[in-house]
């Protein structure tokens, strides 16, 4: 078994192969020098904790004990599907019976001239270390893109005392996948913490002279920063698959069992697009920690012949200041919303399809105030339940009771 990509997804797949009792060789190939690690802390704890520790999914000892060969600092450069072999950037070949592509995604590049060494992206632990060095008190940080990475980083930078400006070209932050009502709360939280959030304005020019970055906005306003972090989305890493003749459709195209059109090659996590049965087979690609983990485990299972379909409801979270946002399901499938208020200002928006079916739930509140109800909502979504809107909207009605119905 060969796994390309040693992130959350690939690492989880390797461990799962062993959990399931597979005894043959397992190779895990990653282009970073580190052990497989969790990326969610990179925009948060890795910035704000005293020492930036890597949160490894498996230690060297565990990998050795489970006979997982971790080949690090090496890329896969070609797949020979006929010979069942992968060529690595060090020139060696690795034979496979089943191959898993867990190549992940990389930050979308800002297609503008003028970017220099003070214009950076965040994807890896090493990226995080480089950014962290600039987030001290008094430093000016510009965040290009009001998405999750940018906003989490803005919160971390404020915590460290930096002056922070968030620049979003869209009319509001978090346009993709987050309801406006919730985005507004996050927007206000950032302003209350002293972040300048500028929305609805594109960037017309960037000049990075090595000492500072000057960003010119559409209205002529100029933002000067010591560091510009670009967080404008991610693109799936698909070149290896495409060059091997595999179909790519907003990610490496796989079926519900995460298999590509080649029966011996699977793809999972950020790099793949797959059909979601609960939304009528709609093809989606998810950039989320839990999806990477679940698909890594499922791919391992299917590499061993289980032939199980991915059935999990999409779910993700974001932490900013004391607030946590959690979303289950795809909210753009909804036609109407019902609001349920919880304690401490927390609330959940339930998104219902035209036929009354619950298709998503978005919640925000302090700490983990929305976690339990979002989890229950996720189970209701998986069951394709169509609970009465009045029941969803009333805090007096326990969501767990709707699950039993």
């Amino acid at each position, binding site marked *: 078994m060969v796994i390309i990509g040693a992130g959350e997804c690939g690492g*989880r797949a390797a461990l799962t192969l062993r959990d399931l009792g597979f005894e043959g060789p397992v190779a895990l190939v990653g282009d970073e020098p580190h052990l497989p690690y*969790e990326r969610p802390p990179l925009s948060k704890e890795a910035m704000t904790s005293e020492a930036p520790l890597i949160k490894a999914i498996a230690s060297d000892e565990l990998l050795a004990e489970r006979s997982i060969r971790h080949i690090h600092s090496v890329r896969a450069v070609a797949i020979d599907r006929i010979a069942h072999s992968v060529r690595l950037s060090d020139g060696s070949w690795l034979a496979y019976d089943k191959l898993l592509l867990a190549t992940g995604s990389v930050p979308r590049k800002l297609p503008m001239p003028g970017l220099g060494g003070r214009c950076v992206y965040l994807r890896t632990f090493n990226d995080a270390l480089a950014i962290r060095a600039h987030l001290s008190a008094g430093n000016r940080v510009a965040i290009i893109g009001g998405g999750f990475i940018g906003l989490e980083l803005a919160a971390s930078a404020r915590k460290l005392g930096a002056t922070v400006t968030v620049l979003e070209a869209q009319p509001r932050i978090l346009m993709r996948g987050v309801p406006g009502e919730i985005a507004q709360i996050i927007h206000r939280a950032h302003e209350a913490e002293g972040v300048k959030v500028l929305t609805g304005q594109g960037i017309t020019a960037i000049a990075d002279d090595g000492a500072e970055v000057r960003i010119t906005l559409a209205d002529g306003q100029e933002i000067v920063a010591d560091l510009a972090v670009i967080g404008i989305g991610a693109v799936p890493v698909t070149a290896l698959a495409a060059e091997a003749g595999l179909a790519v459709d907003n990610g490496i195209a796989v079926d519900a069992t995460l298999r590509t059109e080649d029966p011996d090659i699977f793809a999972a996590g950020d790099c793949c697009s797959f059909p979601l049965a609960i939304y009528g087979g709609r093809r989606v690609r998810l950039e989320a920690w*839990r999806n990477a*983990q679940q698909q890594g485990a499922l791919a391992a299972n299917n590499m061993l012949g289980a032939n199980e379909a991915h059935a999990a409801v999409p779910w993700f979270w974001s932490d900013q200041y004391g607030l946590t946002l959690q979303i289950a399901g795809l909210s753009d499938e909804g036609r109407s919303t019902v609001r349920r208020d919880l304690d401490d200002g927390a609330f959940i928006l339930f998104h219902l399809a035209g036929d009354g079916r619950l298709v998503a739930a978005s919640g925000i509140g302090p700490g*983990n105030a929305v*976690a*339990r109800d979002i989890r*229950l909502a996720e189970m209701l979504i998986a069951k394709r339940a169509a609970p009465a809107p009045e029941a969803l909207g009333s805090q007096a009605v326990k969501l767990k009771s709707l699950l039993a119905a």
Partner: protein
Amino acid sequence: MNDWVEACAAADIDEEDVMRFDHAGRTYAIYRSPDDEYFATDGLCSHEKVHLADGLVMDDIIECPKHNGRFNYKTGDARGAPVCVNLKTYPVKVDAGKVLIQLG
């Protein structure tokens, strides 16, 4: 250190639910199972220090509110990724409508 400490009233926790209990600088989670028995574990998830009492109880499983790590709260056993370290459990008894937990 084998004293029984009163944590809450038995009626404070719904069936198949969990409640946080802080005592002497530590935090615990007290559970009431669907078959009306009471249990106690350490209050923080062993993956990232998150209060389990904000999580969901389903049968004999508590699920961490942050990353869905699962534990059997009756035994403390970790039940799958991302958690791999078991939770410490504590003896519990109900006496005159009070839930008592034995710390030590």
